[in-house]
């Protein structure tokens, strides 16, 4: 019994590294002729709708527990169910959420003042007790939280009033506050958490949050249904959609058919192979939005030929990114200057500092075969074949690597493409034995929080489990540590850009591109944000009807 090529794509994306990113030209400077129109928002919805079906192209979530969501599908759903303490807007700026304000009486203390008018779906009022329980439980191994690193610098989390929570730190940490905007900072009811135990967030255990939609039923393998919370505390975001059903179509052609026939109303993360058919359809609109997603090729160990940054640079120099963006991404991507996109910092208080740092980086190289050859000669690698892993069936990665393969030939390097099964591909990020026989992997990832720092640390810090090449530049490590400990946004940004200038020169990786967000909506609906920020915001609360009948 052999399955057709279908689900592979689903899992490929699961391998997305934590929160990768890529350099986007500020203000769309990298726009090439015939560039697509990017939009963060879509026309506001006008009417109420009984039901909307939305797809999750990466397949069914394995959990909706906010402490455990760490991927496209679970985040897309959970962000509409559980409110975090802070919110992210479509432009990646931070805004108050369940916390109305926050302050630092000293640099090791964070005080969060909570809204007093918020209730959980069951009508119980939200208090500081619930916030403390939701944050503290992520320390316990049994919770299996994906955010334990966020708590690394925290000493205590206490309720200092009915609606006030105080967090004390061992060392100052500017990242903590930003993590409150994603699953880490989502608030669940303490009593319910206790009752549900380890089944919290599963189809059986359910959820108890304060968000604009409530979990109503979850038929494993079939669909997940949410209904609107008519008593939602934020009147400006009271949902217009009464019932929102999520489906898990992972097959590209099935998804395209279902969207074209109007059986499914919309989806984020439209694959490039489906985009062609959808962009020309009159059933609905395909939107392109700014994104914090990134694609790069990353060496799997210190012995990889790619671990020599000269080889990485040489590959960068022969890769025709303009042609790649046009052919592989259908134009829906940007070239990379570094691996952190501007969307991540463009609304920071220190945006100008980050922008200056970005502008000072060397430009994305034009193709220069002669220079690349010189670099390869200089490095004189013992091994001239580079095996690169990718998730089996992921067309976009396959086309990208095929491009790179052709380019590498010109400088005497051979690229062998290794398509791995889902559990192998995701496993290689944990298990060194699964990286044996490989020299590099395709890395697809995104940055969730509006701060580039954590991402840079993941690849440069000697202590990071993702630092496979044993990159160790003490100056970079020190600058990033000081940046994290600096609560003044401008000072923090300044230190970060200094570190960035250093690692940009010698960190071995091949940045490929920063894909845009692709989202499709049937013409009967509108309002959902088109920006990648959807991954951490109650995007479905903005969704509603238009005056057009669907097909």
């Amino acid at each position, binding site marked *: *019994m052999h*399955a*057709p090529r*279908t*689900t592979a794509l689903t*899992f490929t*994306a*699961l*391998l*997305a*590294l*934590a*929160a990768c990113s890529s350099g986007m030209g500020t203000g769309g400077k990298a726009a090439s002729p015939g560039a697509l129109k990017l939009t963060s928002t879509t026309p506001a919805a006008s009417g109420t709708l009984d039901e909307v079906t939305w797809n999750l192209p990466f397949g069914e979530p*394995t*959990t909706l527990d906010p402490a455990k*969501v*760490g*991927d*496209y599908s*679970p*985040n897309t759903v959970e962000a509409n169910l559980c409110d975090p303490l802070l919110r992210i807007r479509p432009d990646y700026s931070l805004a108050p959420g369940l916390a109305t304000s926050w302050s630092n009486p000293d640099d090791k203390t964070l005080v969060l003042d909570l809204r007093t008018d918020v209730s959980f779906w069951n009508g119980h009022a939200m208090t500081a007790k619930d916030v403390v329980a939701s944050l503290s439980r992520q320390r316990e*191994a*049994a919770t*299996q*939280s*994906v955010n*334990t*690193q966020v708590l690394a610098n925290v000493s205590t989390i206490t309720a200092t009033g009915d609606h006030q929570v105080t967090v004390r730190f061992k060392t100052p940490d500017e990242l903590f506050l930003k993590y409150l905007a994603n699953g880490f900072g989502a608030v669940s009811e303490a009593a319910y958490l206790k009752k549900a135990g380890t*089944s919290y967030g*599963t189809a*059986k255990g359910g959820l108890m949050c304060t968000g604009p939609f409530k979990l109503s039923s979850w*038929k*494993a*393998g*079939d669909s997940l249904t949410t209904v609107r919370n008519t008593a939602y505390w934020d009147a400006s975001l009271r949902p217009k959609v009464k019932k929102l059903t999520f*489906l898990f179509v992972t*097959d590209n*052609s*099935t998804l395209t*058919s*279902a969207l*074209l*026939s109007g*059986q*499914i109303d919309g989806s984020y993360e439209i694959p490039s192979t489906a985009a062609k058919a959808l962009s020309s359809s009159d059933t609905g609109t395909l939107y392109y939005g700014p994104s914090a997603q990134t694609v790069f090729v990353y060496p799997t160990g210190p012995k990889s030929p790619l671990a020599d940054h000269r080889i990485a640079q040489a590959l960068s120099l022969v890769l025709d990114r303009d042609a790649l963006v046009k052919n592989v991404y259908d134009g829906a991507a940007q070239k990379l200057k570094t691996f952190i996109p501007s969307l991540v910092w463009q609304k920071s208080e220190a945006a100008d500092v980050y922008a200056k740092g970005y502008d000072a980086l060397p430009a994305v190289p034009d193709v220069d075969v002669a220079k690349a050859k010189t670099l390869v000669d200089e490095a004189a690698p013992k091994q001239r074949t580079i095996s690169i892993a990718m998730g089996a069936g992921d067309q976009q990665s396959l086309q990208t690597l095929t491009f790179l393969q052709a380019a590498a030939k010109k400088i005497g390097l051979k690229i062998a493409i290794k398509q*791995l*099964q*889902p*559990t192998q*591909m*995701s*496993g290689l*990020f*944990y*298990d060194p034995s*699964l990286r044996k026989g490989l020299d590099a992997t395709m890395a697809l990832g995104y940055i*969730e929080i509006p701060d580039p720092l*954590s991402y840079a640390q*993941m690849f440069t810090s000697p202590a990071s489990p*993702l630092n496979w090449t044993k990159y160790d530049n003490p100056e970079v490590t020190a600058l990033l540590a000081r940046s994290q400990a600096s609560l003044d946004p401008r000072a923090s940004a300044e230190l970060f850009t200094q570190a960035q200038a250093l690692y940009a020169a010698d960190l071995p990786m091949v940045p490929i591109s920063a894909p845009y967000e692709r989202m499709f909506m049937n013409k009967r609906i509108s309002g959902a944000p088109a920006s990648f920020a959807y991954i951490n915001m109650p995007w479905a609360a903005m969704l509603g009807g238009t005056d057009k009948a669907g097909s």
Partner: protein
Amino acid sequence: MIWRFLARRTAMLLVTVLVAGLAVHGALFIAPGDPATLLIGGGKPPNPQLLAEIHRQYHLDEPFLQSYARWLGGLLHGDAGESLAYRDSVTHLLGQRAGNTLFLIAYAAVLIIVPGVALGTLAALRGGAGDTAVTIVTTALMAVPTFVMSVLLIWWLSVQWAWFPAYGAGAGLTGRLEHLTLPALALAAAWIAYVAQVTRSAVRGELASEHVQTARSRGIPERVVVRKHVLRNASGPIFSVSGVAVAGLIAGCAVVEQAFGVNGVGALLVQSAAKQDMAVVQTLALVTVVVFVAVNTLVDVVSAALDHRVSLEGAA
């Protein structure tokens, strides 16, 4: 005699199940990869402690025989284990999906047997151009892979004409009929030729037999001859080939369920194999083997009852 036959079949089934179970378990065990990493997802930095915790919870670090024994032991207590991907009991997952798959197989079986037998009979009785046409059309259908047929049907009847939904299993009888028509058609297409050809040769054989000649010479009307003498005697081989086709559908289900997004047992098997969801794959392999053997046994018993020239002795 029938009891001896059934006892032998049951013993054979038990041995098959044990061997198949070990083979499946072994294949999953040695396959590289770590199913627990799929649970964590890729949107966060890798966290080795978290992985260790999941391994502990699901006994993923156990040696081979111990984990097989654990699953087998659970099975004897009616517990098929816990799915890693769904964090739910395997029996519950199966229960939710069995209805869709059984409906799909039954629907496809009707779509195979009715036209297959009708076309085969027609070809045998008419001969000539009709015979050739039936052979060409059914053989052409047989040549198209199920997956390709699925894509063609979706494109043509769902996207172009919007007659049928492209995705899902539907609910209730009408909803299911509407949603499962295309998948059943895709599943049935390849088997119609098979049933039609066997029917054709069985009916042909009967037409040329002595008792039919005798009946005709007695002046019995042709309609009655065909119904009473030809079809009745040809029913044995027709029934057994239909049985084989239905058993084959069990395997084909995975392909169409996946293509049409039908939430059934076949799709679950494909997805669970990709995720190395051990307990689910093991249990589904077991169920498939049992059902397959049961259907074949039933076919053998009924064939023998229909046609006394067939004995069960050689069949076990």
